[in-house]
Every structure is written in C-alpha cells, then in structure tokens.
C-alpha cells in the first residue's frame, strides 16, 4: 500500500479536530460570529432543539453578507445559513473527508457522533497538521507558538 493510500485510510478521529460551536436557529448572525470568534474556528453549526445539526454558518457566508447586506448582522442566523450540511462520523476515513470537501467545495465538515450530534469541526488545516506530524519526519519543525498568540499575531490568512 502506498504512503498516500495509508494517509487516505487514516481516520478522521486521528486528525487535530477543532471545537464545534453551536447556536440555535433564532440566534442572530452577530451571535453566530461571536461563537466562531470565541472558539477560534471559521464555522458554527446551527442545531435544532434536539441538538441535531440543521445548517452551518461560516466566514465565507459572513463575507457574502457583509458585501451584500451589512445591515443584516442582527437578523436570525437561520435566514442566512447554508442548509445543505454535510456531516461525517468519527470513523470516516480521510479519503472520505477529502472526497466530501472536493465534491461540494466545502471548507469545513461537521463531525458527528453515532447519534448524529455534532462533536467537532474539521477542515484542511487539520489535515495539513496530520501530514506534517506523521508523514514528513524530516521536515525541520519549529516549536509551535501558543495558539492564542498565533491567532492574535497571525501574519497569514
């Protein structure tokens, strides 16, 4: 089995998963933004009363909203969320994750437990960390700076 096949068969659960902020449908866009900022992640999951995911709001939708209707930040997030939410279980493979993201042009995928409730978010950055940590043993690794400092003084996008 080639190295890439090994990589593709690794499980999502092996990735550095990100916290999954959730808000209820009647939260405002501003509140959804605050949840993203608080968790330092680029997406928020909108859940129903049973805790099941019904949509996602992310940075891309925020940019679009600011460009078209900047006065809409006080409206309910349910009006502006993406309703086609793609989820994967923790047991899915990285190959499944990449296929899902590529087919639907996604930046974030919601990871759910066996009951269908969101437990984490994952995206390509988690995958990059996984590749560097596990498949590039000879790359010189600089000690990572504290994540809150990295976000505060981040120099890239």
């Amino acid at each position: 089995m080639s190295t890439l096949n090994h990589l593709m068969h690794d499980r999502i659960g092996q990735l550095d998963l990100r916290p999954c902020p959730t808000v209820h449908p009647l939260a405002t866009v501003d509140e959804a933004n605050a949840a993203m900022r608080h968790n330092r992640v680029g997406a928020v999951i909108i859940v129903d009363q049973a805790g099941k995911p019904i949509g996602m709001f992310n940075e891309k939708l925020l940019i679009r909203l600011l460009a078209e209707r900047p006065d809409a930040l006080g409206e309910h997030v349910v009006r502006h969320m993406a309703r086609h939410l793609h989820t994967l279980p923790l047991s899915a493979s990285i190959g499944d994750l990449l296929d899902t993201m590529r087919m639907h042009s996604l930046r974030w995928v919601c990871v759910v437990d066996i009951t269908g409730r969101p437990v984490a978010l994952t995206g390509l950055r988690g995958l990059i960390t996984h590749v560097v940590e596990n498949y590039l043993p000879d790359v010189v690794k600089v000690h990572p700076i504290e994540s809150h400092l990295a976000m505060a003084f981040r120099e890239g996008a």
Partner: protein
Amino acid sequence: MLKPRHRHEPDPTSFDDPLRRYETNYRSDLDRTLHEDAMESVEMMPFACVEPNTSVGRVIQLMAGLDIACVVVVRRDRPVGILSERDVLDRLSCDYDLWAGRPVSDAMTPDPVVVHETDSPAHVLNVMDVGMFRHVPIVDADGRLTGVIGARRITRYLQRHFASV
C-alpha cells in the same frame, strides 16, 4: 634540501565521496515528492491583490465576488499585507460600518509570511502548520507576488500527483 614529493594516482575504488553523506534517505514516495518538488509545480489558486489605499468595503466586495478567502495587499507588486476571512471575522465584523470606508492598510495584517516559488511543498506545509495559516503568498526571487497557496491546492496536488500510485 627538500625531497621531491611523489604523487600517487587516487584509487577510484577507495574514493569516498564526502557529498554522499548529505544525500537524504526519504522514507517514502510522498516524502520525496514533498521535499524535491518546487511550489512552481503546484497549481496556485486564483488570487487578488489590491493597493493599500483600497477601501475595506471594496476589498470585501472583491472577496465575495471572486469567492476567495484572502486578498494580498501589495505596493509595487510586493506583498505588504494580507486581509483574510479570519481577519474580517475577528476585527471587522463587529463594527463593519466604521471599517467599510477605511483603507485596507488599517485592517490588514502587515508583513505577511511568504514562501518562494522554489520552496518545496514540504516547506510550505510546515509554514502553514506552524503559523496556523490557511493561505500564504508566494513571491519570486525579487520578492514580487506571483501567487497564493492554500490548503486546498496542496491537498489537490497530493491527490493528483498520487492518483496513479
């Protein structure tokens, strides 16, 4: 009186090439490709650049219209800053009315970390991992912006490169 020195022809079978010890032993085909390729072989994403005096509102329109996650701010073709989706979320979304008319130089992250066209994908992956960046500007030998590399392009490159393996 000095004795004349006798020169002996070197024995090619006993010659030990000192450069041999610097050859890297890659652990896998993936490892070799990521170290030996250059960023030129990775498809760079469509990117947009603006002048520092462009308004934040105009930059947001640009990002939404082109469906891109960041804009590089350049002065004489050289990157001097970057404005990303995360910057918009963290800094601008709270008081967007106040920010919209201001120049992007007030809102951008100055002096972005850049990589060179000749850097290897392994180097870029490490920069993105350590710096927690999703997009990094690419410059040529003169420091002029030539592209932007993102995580999506890197993973597509990997998938394309190893599709037949």
